[in-house]
């Protein structure tokens, strides 16, 4: 059973180290997380891992650290550029190879790039980013064990999510948490951290415990599954949200509307750029945002309940 692995050495090192209380999650820390994951995965002998051979050699370090306690690990024959295209191409390649799950180690941006490369990817997103609005924060050894159970004993531990598709004159892109129009016209350092910049957004999450735009959305109540929320920023009324690590802000929200799967929103004319999962990416000209099916994500509790060593029965297929 093939499990894919993409670890991002660049996540959690951007300008938000200066504009929020977020800290760098260094390469050694990530290698350590991956090593612990590998030990968990190796509990099922049938599992083999194919990984992106990242620019920092972090997976190689993890493999060395896990030693004999890890599963066999192979590397994708990709030209590594050290950009998010590595994640996207790796995810596509792993889809073609028939991987049963893709473990990412990184932030929301890493997850986003993986989902762009493999639309229906069964994701195991280990959090090593700034907000980790999408990612799992449980102990990676436990996550590895859950994945091992889920992929070898049957399906059903992965739940569907909602994503948003953005189409502008510059191209197409996917966001797993939010697509937000900001006033800036430059990609620059990528991150957004000033509420005054926000124009409008479509967000797929309203988890109370999430950080970022999802935290803003949470102020307006839970989202129905398969729905996204359209937010219009500005105006006199504000909501208090955890906009980033250590950053609690009052965000002015003029209006909100819940959108079902397939719904489309035409973006405000001439506003600026669309930021995808917290990073400025595309000019917003003629931009359309569509609510679509997103990647699958592992449900750890379900994996243990249904497939775990003490589960009542074992289901196949």
């Amino acid at each position: 059973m093939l499990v894919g692995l993409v670890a991002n050495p660049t996540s959690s090192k951007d300008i938000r180290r200066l504009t929020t209380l977020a800290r760098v999650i260094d390469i050694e820390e990530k290698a350590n997380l991956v090593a612990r994951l590998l030990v968990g995965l190796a509990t099922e002998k049938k599992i083999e891992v194919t990984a992106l051979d990242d620019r920092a050699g972090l997976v190689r370090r993890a493999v060395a650290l896990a030693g004999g306690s890890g599963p066999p690990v192979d590397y994708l024959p990709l030209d590594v550029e050290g950009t998010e295209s590595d994640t996207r191409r790796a995810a596509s390649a792993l889809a073609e190879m028939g991987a049963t799950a893709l473990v990412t180690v990184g932030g929301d941006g890493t997850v986003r790039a993986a989902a762009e490369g493999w639309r229906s990817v069964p994701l195991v997103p280990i959090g090593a980013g700034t907000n980790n609005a999408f990612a799992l924060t449980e102990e990676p050894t436990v996550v590895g064990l859950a994945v091992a159970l889920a992929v070898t004993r049957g399906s059903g531990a992965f739940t569907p999510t909602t994503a948003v598709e953005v189409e502008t004159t510059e191209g197409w892109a996917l966001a797993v948490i939010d697509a937000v129009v900001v006033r800036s016209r430059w990609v620059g350092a990528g991150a957004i951290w000033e509420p005054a910049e926000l124009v409008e957004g479509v967000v797929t999450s309203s988890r109370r415990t999430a950080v970022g735009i999802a935290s803003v959305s949470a102020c307006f109540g839970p989202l129905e599954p398969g729905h996204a929320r359209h937010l219009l920023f500005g105006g006199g009324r504000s909501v208090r949200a955890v906009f980033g690590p250590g950053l609690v802000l009052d965000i002015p929200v003029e209006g909100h509307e819940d959108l079902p799967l397939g719904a489309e929103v035409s973006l405000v004319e001439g506003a600026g750029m669309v930021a995808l999962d917290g990073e400025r990416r595309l000019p917003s000209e003629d931009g359309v945002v569509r609510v679509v099916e997103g990647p699958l994500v592992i449900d750890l509790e379900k994996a243990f309940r249904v497939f775990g060593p003490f589960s009542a029965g074992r289901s196949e297929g």
Partner: protein
Amino acid sequence: MDIPREHLVDMYETMVKIRRFEERIREFYLADKLPAFDIAAGLIPGEMHLAAGQEPVAVGMRPHLKQGDAITATHRPHHVAIAQGVDLKKMAAEIFGRDTGLGHGKGGHMHLYSVEPNFGCSGIIGEGIPVAVGAAMAFRHKGTDNVALSFFGEGAANQGSFHESLNLAALWNLPVVFVCEDNAYAISVPKTASTAIADNSDRAAAYGIPGVLVSSNDPVAVYEVLGEAIARARRGEGPSLIEIKTDRLWGHFEGDADAYRTDEFKTEMMGRDPLSTYAKRLTDEGILNESDIASIQQAMYDEVDEALQFAQDSPYPEPESALEHVFAERTVKL
């Protein structure tokens, strides 16, 4: 944040000026040293380390600086000095070894020193890092809100002076921004062969200061990050380490066969020349049109040519002045 048009254009103008300066210096430098490379021959004897491709790292700081800020740099200093606004004529004259130069012609290309703006550089790897910490200490003592910036390469980040400087700056919460220009090669040594970890920004944690990785050679990204780092330091919130992945388009030194980098690597690198990519973005955004680009080029080329002409027309220092400017002149009261 919305970036003022004048900042965007100013960064481009400065990048053009830097590139033109480096190209012309290169012409002068090599002209009378070939065919057999004689490093002592010609108008500019000695070594020459040019910063073509590294312009974004230097120009991003410009609008955030204020008078009195101190900057230190390396053996590859021209882009930083030009970005800080060091007098171009005196800088050119210094490189040409003339008496009108910043150091009366006695320092040369790697020892440019300017009082206003306060700029210094050195050929010793990692030398400028503690000097910037010292400047930051002085600002703290004087009670000003000036900041110091130290530019150094990824090779220098393995020197003791780097580690000592970050430790002290963190301990005393000094207003200094450490800027690591990562061009992936320390002369011919690739970073993977010299450094235990892949990203120097990771090292900030060891000193309890914030680290940031700017992974693209983009003046706007540098502008935003250095803007925050400098503002933070001015507010008294202490030092930070900013690592910027950049491209050294030419060899380590002029005359370097640069055979340790593959043709494929070099072609790919040239393909992302920051001068062209930034110009294209400015025109795509309607900030500048073709005619603006042409006028900027002309203006910058003229300024560079004027500086180089000044240098060539300037006299050499008199041999009798060899021992002047070596020691500080003082009267000692016994």
